[in-house]
C-alpha cells in the first residue's frame, strides 16, 4: 500500500515537471493549473484522513471516560485546527501564484 502511494506521487511529480520549464508567463498555463488542482486535492484528502483519525480516537476516548470529556474536547479542537492549517498552507501557495 505504501509502495503504491509512493509510486503514484512520483508519477505525479514527473507529470508536473514541465512546469519548471516555464518562466513567469502570463496567459494560459495549463500545467500549473492542473498541478494546483491536484496539489489541493491531495492536501485536502490527506488532511481529511488525519482529521478522521483524530475524531475517531477522541470519540472513543470520550466513550471510555465521559468525565474527561472537557479535556478531550479541548485537545480534539486544537488538533483539528492544527491539521486543517496544513491543508490551508497548500491553498495559500496556489493563490500566491506559483
Amino acid at each position, binding site marked *: 500500500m505504501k509502495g503504491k502511494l509512493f509510486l503514484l506521487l512520483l508519477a505525479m511529480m514527473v507529470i508536473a515537471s514541465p512546469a519548471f520549464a516555464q518562466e513567469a508567463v502570463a496567459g494560459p498555463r495549463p500545467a500549473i493549473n492542473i498541478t494546483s488542482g491536484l496539489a489541493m486535492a491531495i492536501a485536502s484528502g490527506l488532511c481529511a484522513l488525519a482529521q478522521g483519525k483524530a475524531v475517531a480516537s477522541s470519540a472513543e476516548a470520550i466513550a471510555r471516560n465521559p468525565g474527561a470529556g472537557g479535556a478531550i474536547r479541548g485537545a480534539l*479542537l*486544537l488538533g483539528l*485546527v*492544527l491539521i*486543517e*492549517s496544513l491543508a*490551508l*498552507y497548500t*491553498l*495559500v501557495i496556489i*493563490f500566491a501564484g506559483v
Partner: protein
Amino acid sequence: MEQHHELWITSVFNTYLAGVGNGILGLFGQHAHDPAKPWANFMTMQILTALLVIVIFALLRGRLSMDKPGKMQHIFETFYTFLHDQAEEAAGHGGTKYLAFFGTLFFFILFCNLIGIIPGLESPTMFPAVTLGCAIAAFLYYNIVGVQAVGLGHYLKHFVGPMPMLAPLMIPIEIVSHFARPLSLTIRLYANMLAGEKVTLVFLGLTYFVAPAVFMGLHVFVAFLQAYVFTVLTMMYVGGATAHEH
C-alpha cells in the same frame, strides 16, 4: 491578488485624511501606490475594530456591579473565566500574569474576524499583512516575557537542548522552529479567513441565498475557533518560554 474595491469608510478616510496617511507612510520611508488613496481597506477596518473594542470595554467597565450583574457582565465574565482557565492550563504556572495580553489578542482577532460578516465591512485579517502584525506581536511578546521571567542566559539555554553535546544540531533546529511559529500563526489565520470569504463568494455565484448563508455560518464558527487557537498557541509559547526548570 485582485484589487478589492474601496469600502465607504476607506473612501471617507482617503477624502479627508489622505495627508495624514501619506505622512504616516513617509515616517517609515514608504510610499503609497496611489498618493491620492494612501489608506487601504484593512487599515481603516483595523482602526474601526480597535475603536469598537475600546468602546465596548469602556461601556462594560461602567456597568460592572457586584450586587446586580447585568447581561453584559455575565457574557464577559464567561469569556474571562474561559481565558483564565486556558491560561492556567496552557501557559503553565505563572500563566495568568500575562492574561491581559492574551485577552487583548483574543478580542482583537475575534472582532477583526467577525466584522467581515457585516455587509459593507470586511475582515482585516483576510490580509496577510494584518495577521503577520499580530503574529510578530505575539512572537516579540513571548520572547521578551521569557527573557524577563528566567533571565537571558537561562532563556538561551532552551535553544541548546538537553545535552551540550547536541548543541550544534539543536541550535539550528530550535531557531528554525522558533521562526516557524509566527509564520504558521500568520498563514493559519489569513488562509482561514480568506478561504471563508472565497467559498461564500463562489457559492454566491453558483446558488443564490441558501448555500452562501450556510457557509457564512461556518465562517462565524471558524472565526471564533481561529481567534481561540491563535490565543492558545501564544499561551503555549509563553508557557514554554517562561518554564522554570526546578
